[in-house]
Structures are given as C-alpha cells and as structure tokens.
C-alpha cells in the first residue's frame, strides 16, 4: 500500500455493473516524506468515508478490487483506510 492525499471527488454517470454507488475520489500519491509524487489517480473508496484533504492509504492492483463488495469489479486503486496519525522517524 502507499500513502495518498484526497484532492477531490469524481462523479461518474455511467459505471460498470458492480460499481454503482461506489465513491470515486481523486488521489495524489505521496512519497515517504509526505510530498506529492507522480500524477493523480482515481481510486474507489472502500471506507466510504474519505473526503478531500484527508490522508489515506490505498492498495493497487488486483487486491484493490478485493476491498469492494462485489469484488469482481474493474478497479485498480482502492482507498483502504484513513490515516489518523503517521509516526515518522
């Protein structure tokens, strides 16, 4: 998993079967120092509670879809949780 910052929401009007009602958020991936890294991505939100400005961790690849119900859906990034604190040394 990697860390990301939610920077916006996406509202699709047509989605594949199984993705109805799944929140989609714009996500800026972060590096290990918390600085933006790379281009923004769109991620499904398995917590259904994340919103713009929040620090989250997300999974990529096949495991991203497994976080959703139903899980056999075409998704490649999914927000798994919202970070409360991030202790760095």
């Amino acid at each position: 998993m990697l860390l990301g910052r939610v920077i916006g929401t996406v509202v699709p009007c047509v989605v594949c079967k199984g993705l109805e009602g799944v929140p989609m958020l714009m996500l800026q991936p972060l590096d290990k120092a918390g600085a933006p890294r790379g281009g923004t991505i769109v991620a499904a939100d398995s917590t259904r509670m994340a919103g713009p400005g929040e620090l989250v961790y997300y999974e990529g690849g096949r495991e991203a879809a497994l976080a959703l119900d139903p899980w056999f859906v075409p998704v490649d990034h999914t927000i798994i949780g919202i970070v409360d604190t991030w202790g760095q040394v």
Partner: protein
Amino acid sequence: MIIGRVIGTITSTINHPFYDGHKLLVVERTDAQGSPMADYLVAIDTVDAGTGDRVLVLDEGNGARQVVASRDAPVRSVIVGIVDAVTAS
C-alpha cells in the same frame, strides 16, 4: 520479496474491516548495501517488527493472503521477517 527498513507507523480508525487489529508499518526499501531508496510501502506486520528494524517484505497478493489466512483479504504487502544480516558482494 524486498528488504527494507521500518521508518514509521500508521494508526487508523476508519479502515476496511479486514484491517481492524492489524498493525501497519511504513517501510522504506533499501538496496543490497542497506542504503535507503526512494521506494516505500505500507505493510501489515506479522512478526512484531518495530521502527528501525530491517525487515523482509512480501509484496505479492496471493502469498500475502496466505500469510494472513484469508482468501479474499485486500492485502498485498506483508512484513514476513526481521533481518539480522545481509551479505552482498
């Protein structure tokens, strides 16, 4: 698998139900000599690792689900060992 160093912890209240009770650590990847690289990942800890430890991280879905004993957990990165020494020429 990759070798990395634990550089921090993540606490999270709102997360995917599978992640309840699982400890999440931030691991920076290290090269063969142990120097930090730019890559990092957030992984579930199964071996009671702590900040500063050199760890072995499995970054593959099927093996990771085997480690956490679940057929459908949205998990890809799992810390599966603490490294004492690495010999590389």
